[in-house]
Every structure is written in structure tokens, then in C-alpha cells.
């Protein structure tokens, strides 16, 4: 690929000039910065918090399931090698077992059953099936992003820096920061998360509803190895997931728990002493991993769904949670954000290669048409799943158990579900297919 790089941001009078300004330096925002800078755009990304704060162990205790399609995209933008370089932090998911409460009905997804060439990464040896995804600690992803950003001279990080406002001029957006600095860019990307101020400032309405559920997240150490198997159990109160992590430095086997609970009860669970908390964990995990204990801090995240009525405005595009936040039931939130990034990068690269203004409405409309269907579909599926599984109403319970058995037996349907979980269904961006931009 012949690619000339735009220079690092230039000064015009007192204003910094870049092709793209990204507001929000979280996982999705910075990945967008890396993707666009890797594609040759000059990019400024800003965040209210200093970057070091994000790398602190106490900042974010979650892990993310990086689906196969997302991993390919991260490889394509030179980020995945930095993830691997952080140490033993990416645990492949080779098997997903989804079960319903305490029943024996379950769907068993085994990556070895997906024997088609399309589902295999070009780099993997032919005998090794491509895993569904990898479980990676969020702080590892953040550290990898910071390391990759340093390699890109055309990506500038401004943090801490806070946006005061954006004014559109005919050929660019002019952003002012609270500290008085100004930035000129052809396009502004809103990646500030669920409570996006840019989205609110443009009057883009959102559909939102909160679930009466909160996710408790913690790490457990266990006696037996997990074998790369992810478990998702649909308990009456909500989903309960056990996600395989790498062993820690002392060689202890570890998994991450995502334990959905009624919001009202969560403070009480979080306040339990270790022995009582561990007892509650064991009641839910069972004994298949041998002795189990919680390690490290406990976090909690309230669950809510949000979807923006549109993803674009004049010289503005929304990505990640600023556009859509879904129920984490299927582990797809970050993956959707990363697919936004892959689609946006491809849209902008194609526009630049056609000599189009990358902030032009028709260009941005292409990104929106591409992403909206996928995002609405998953928001609907995950919300539906949560409602379906958060019930103990007998006919529904019977129906979903029968459904599980049917899916498990129906080969093509199961393959489709598996490929969907891998992020390999639909019109995929080139990056998600493992191709260069």
C-alpha cells in the first residue's frame, strides 16, 4: 500500500491544524486515533484526564472480550503486537459454553468446529483454528494504545485538555479548548462515551433505558485451569459470565467474573467481607474450577442501553458508546465500538483517495448507513436476550431451554451464531477481514 503520511499537526496562527480531531481518549477514541493516523491522516486526540490516570490499575478493572474480527482490525493498525508485548495478557477463547440457570441445557461453541478458511486468520498456522476471541484486561489495551500512539508522529495526544466548544466554518471545524488553545480539523469525532457532550450540543436525541441491573466485576483465582473456555450462564437475575484470563505472575489460574445483580442489592454484595463474598461467588461459579477465591478489587457498573437517533452532524461523527451503548450480555460493546472505528477508517480513507472532503455530509452518511444496522441489531438482540433470560416465567424458561437444544443441534444456525460472536457476520470493514486499509 502506498501511503504518504500527513505531517504532524501544524500551526496556523494560534490554531493547531489536523485532518481529524478526536474528542475522548478512551479505548474506542484512541483506537480511532491510531487507526486514522496509521492510515496517513494527521490526528489530534484529546481527553479530560491525563493519560497516566487511565493506565492506573485502579482506573478500570474490567476485561474485554476482543472478538476475532476486532483482533484482526487491531493487528491491521499495528496495535495487537503491543497488546501481546504487555506480557501474558491475551487469553484465547477456544470454547464458549452458554447455559441456562441450573439446567443442563447448554449451547457449546467450539472454535475447532469452525473449520472454514474464512474464519481463520492469515497468520495462524493451518492446524490451529482461529479462537473466538481473546480476553484482554482493559488496562492492557490502554497501555498498548499509549505505546502505539508514541510510534505515530502524526497522532498528537492532548491530555488533560477539555473542549469548550466547536464552531463550523465552510472548510473545517474550529474547536476551542478551555485553556484557550484552538484546533482546526476537517472532521470532529465524538468518542466521549455515553454522556457525549458533543452529541448533546448538536441536539442529537438518544433513546435510552436503564436496566435495574448492575454488573459486579472482579477477578478470581482458581485451582484448576479453565482450558480457554468462556462460560455464560443465564441466571434469573441476569447473566453471569466467567471469562478465561491468563495466569498471574505467581502462576495462579485466573478468570474474570461479570456478575449481573439487581442494582438495589449490589452495595450489600460489594460490602461483604472476603469470606462471605467468596462464598457468594462459589455459589454461582460451582466447583468445576476447584477451589475459588476472589482476588483484587471489586468494581460495579450500572447497566443501561442508549442509542443516538443519528451518528452524524455537520463535520461531526459519533463512535462507540457516544453512538450506542448496549447491554453487556453478549460481550459485544467494545467490539461494536471497534467495528465503528474500522468502518470509519475505511470510509475516510476511501473518501480521501477520491479527493473528497472527509468532513462532507455525504461521506459521513456512508459511515452511518454502514454502522446503524449492525448496532441496532445487536442492541435489540442483547436487550431481548436479557429480557428473555431475566425471567423465571415457566413457559419462557421451557422455550429458551428447547431453543438452546435446537441451536446446539442445528449445525448451520450454530455456525452463524458462532461467527456472529466472532464479529464475522455482515458487511465487514476491510480491517475486520484482516485486509489492509
Amino acid at each position, binding site marked *: 500500500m*502506498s501511503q504518504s503520511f*500527513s505531517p504532524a499537526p501544524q500551526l496556523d496562527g494560534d490554531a493547531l491544524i489536523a485532518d481529524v480531531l478526536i474528542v475522548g481518549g478512551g479505548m474506542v477514541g484512541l483506537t480511532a486515533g491510531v487507526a486514522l493516523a496509521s492510515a496517513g491522516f494527521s490526528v489530534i486526540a484529546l481527553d479530560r484526564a491525563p493519560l497516566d490516570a487511565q493506565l492506573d490499575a485502579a482506573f478500570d478493572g474490567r476485561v474485554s472480550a476482543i472478538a476475532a474480527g476486532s483482533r484482526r482490525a487491531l493487528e491491521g493498525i499495528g496495535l495487537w503486537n503491543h497488546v501481546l508485548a504487555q506480557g501474558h495478557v491475551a487469553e484465547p477463547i477456544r470454547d464458549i459454553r452458554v447455559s441456562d440457570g441450573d439446567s443442563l441445557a447448554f449451547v457449546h461453541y467450539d472454535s475447532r468446529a469452525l473449520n472454514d478458511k474464512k474464519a481463520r486468520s492469515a497468520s495462524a498456522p493451518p492446524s490451529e483454528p482461529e479462537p473466538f476471541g481473546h480476553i484482554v484486561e482493559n488496562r492492557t489495551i490502554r497501555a498498548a494504545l499509549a505505546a502505539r500512539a508514541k510510534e505515530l508522529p502524526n497522532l498528537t495526544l492532548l491530555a488533560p485538555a477539555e473542549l469548550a466548544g466547536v464552531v463550523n466554518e465552510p*472548510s473545517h471545524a474550529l474547536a476551542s479548548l478551555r485553556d484557550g488553545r484552538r484546533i482546526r480539523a476537517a472532521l470532529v469525532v465524538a468518542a466521549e462515551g455515553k454522556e457525549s457532550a458533543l452529541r448533546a450540543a448538536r441536539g442529537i436525541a438518544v433513546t435510552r433505558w436503564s436496566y435495574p441491573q448492575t454488573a459486579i466485576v472482579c477477578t478470581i483465582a482458581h485451582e484448576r485451569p479453565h482450558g480457554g473456555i468462556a462460560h455464560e450462564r443465564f441466571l434469573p437475575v441476569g447473566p453471569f459470565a466467567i471469562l478465561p484470563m491468563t495466569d498471574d505472575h505467581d502462576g495462579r489460574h485466573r478468570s474474570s467474573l461479570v456478575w449481573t445483580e439487581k442494582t438495589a442489592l449490589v452495595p450489600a454484595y460489594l460490602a461483604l467481607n472476603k469470606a462471605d463474598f467468596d462464598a457468594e461467588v462459589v455459589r454461582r461459579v460451582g466447583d468445576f474450577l476447584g477451589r475459588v477465591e476472589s482476588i483484587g478489587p471489586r468494581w460495579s457498573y450500572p447497566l443501561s442501553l442508549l442509542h443516538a437517533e443519528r451518528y452524524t452532524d455537520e463535520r461531526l461523527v459519533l463512535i462507540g458508546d457516544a453512538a450506542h451503548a448496549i447491554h453487556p450480555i453478549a460481550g459485544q460493546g467494545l467490539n461494536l465500538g471497534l467495528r465503528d472505528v474500522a468502518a470509519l477508517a475505511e470510509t475516510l480513507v476511501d473518501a480521501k*483517495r*477520491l*479527493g*473528497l472532503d*472527509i468532513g462532507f455530509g455525504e461521506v459521513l452518511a456512508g459511515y452511518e448507513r454502514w454502522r446503524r444496522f449492525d448496532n441496532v441489531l445487536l442492541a435489540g438482540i442483547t436487550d431481548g436476550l436479557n429480557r428473555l433470560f431475566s425471567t423465571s416465567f415457566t413457559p419462557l424458561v421451557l422455550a429458551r431451554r428447547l431453543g438452546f437444544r435446537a441451536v446446539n443441534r442445528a449445525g448451520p444456525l450454530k455456525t452463524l451464531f458462532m461467527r456472529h460472536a466472532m464479529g464475522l457476520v455482515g458487511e465487514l470493514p476491510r480491517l475486520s477481514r484482516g485486509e489492509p486499509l
Partner: protein
Amino acid sequence: MTDAAPPASTVDATVDPGEIARFSALATEWWNPHGKFKPLHRFNPVRVGFLRDRLANHFGRDPLADRPLAGLRILDVGCGGGLLAEPLTRLGAEVTGIDASGPGLMAARLHAEQMGLAIDYRETTVEALAATGAGFDAVLNMEVIEHVADRPAFLAASALALKPGGLMVVATLNRTAKAYALAIVGAEYVLGWLPRGTHNWQKFVKPEELRAELAAADLTVGETTGVVYNPLSDRWSLSRDAAVNYMILSTKPL
């Protein structure tokens, strides 16, 4: 993007401010992706992509390079608001845009100036330009010949404006029942390409007629490519089906 060359021709400082406001409104209309020219904006990427790829191929460039058309002198006949001229300029070409509409040209000039693009817009005809012996690497007659009174004379003048070895691209509408039906029922297909209130089907031209006319202008006629609209995906794509919209390449012998 950061094209910062000074504009070649600026909006005349002696023009009445009221007029400027009118041109500005017209420029805004041309460049509003949700306005009256929305169908043209949706169509534009496929034809810009076609032009980029064929021009790059003809002149031995890499179409995915940063400025694949660098240094090529291109004449955009019937340039309207500059929807082709601007992207081709960003791809490195030195574009001259001509149009018979004075206000339209002022709007194009104003917009290029706002975008920091150097484009030579002139209110003239291809016949007048050819008479000055202007040698262009490429002449683009995109959706204009269906407006022209004397097509053979127009094509001969266009050929004259080309350098030997240069490339001419003509895009127009086929004279088929399908094109007629779509032109009448679907504004999407022709909006902005035909004079208001006229659906003059007789001005549409069949590819074989156009090929004969290009050959008569001493050009070597190349490929014919169709452009089709998919109403389900709301997207245009290149096709072998030339029943409605199509483009013909031809070259001037060395």
C-alpha cells in the same frame, strides 16, 4: 484536508455584496448533501473513482497514491458547482472548469476559495477554449452532451482541446425505454443533469451513436462502462449494463 495553495482566481472584489450573498447561497445549495443535489452527491463518488482509476491507468500512475493525478491538466466541461473539479484538484490535477452559467461559476469559485483549492473557473465554451489551442491531458464531458445543440461540433472542439495522447471521457444517458422511464419517473436519475422542466429524451444518445461521433472527431474510442443505481442499497456502481447511465473513454492519437 490541508491543501493550502492560493486560489487561482478569486471572486471579483468589485462584485455587489448582494450578488455575493446570492452566489454564496447557490454554493451552499450545490454543496448541501441533503438538498436538491443530493442524488448527484450520491452519484459523485462512483464517477470520481472511475475517473481517478482510468486517468491513473492511462498516465501510468498508482490510483491509491496520495496525489495520483499530480500535474495533469484537466478540462471539466459544464463544471456546475465544482463537484468534480474539487476532488480532482485534491487528487493533484490542475483543473480548468468551464460553464455557460455565470452565477453557477461564481458559486463554484466561492466554494473552491472557501476550501482553499486552486481551480481555474472560466465562463466560456469549449469551442472558444479550443480556438486558443489549450492543450489538456484530459477533457471531461460529464453529463453535458445531452444539453448540447450541435453534438458533433461540440465533440470536435473537445477533441481539439486535448493534447495528442490525451484522454476524453464522456458520460451521458442512453436513449432507451428504460432510461426514458427512469428519467420521467425518477428524479434521482437525472436531477440536476437536465434543464429544469425538460425531459428531452431526444437528446439522449445511444452508445453506438456516440462512439461513431467520437471516431468522427478523430479519436480512438475505448471502453464503454455503465453506471447502475441500486434502489435497495441506495448506491451506484459500475456495470456492464449501459441501458441508462454510461461513460465512454477515447484517446487522441499521438
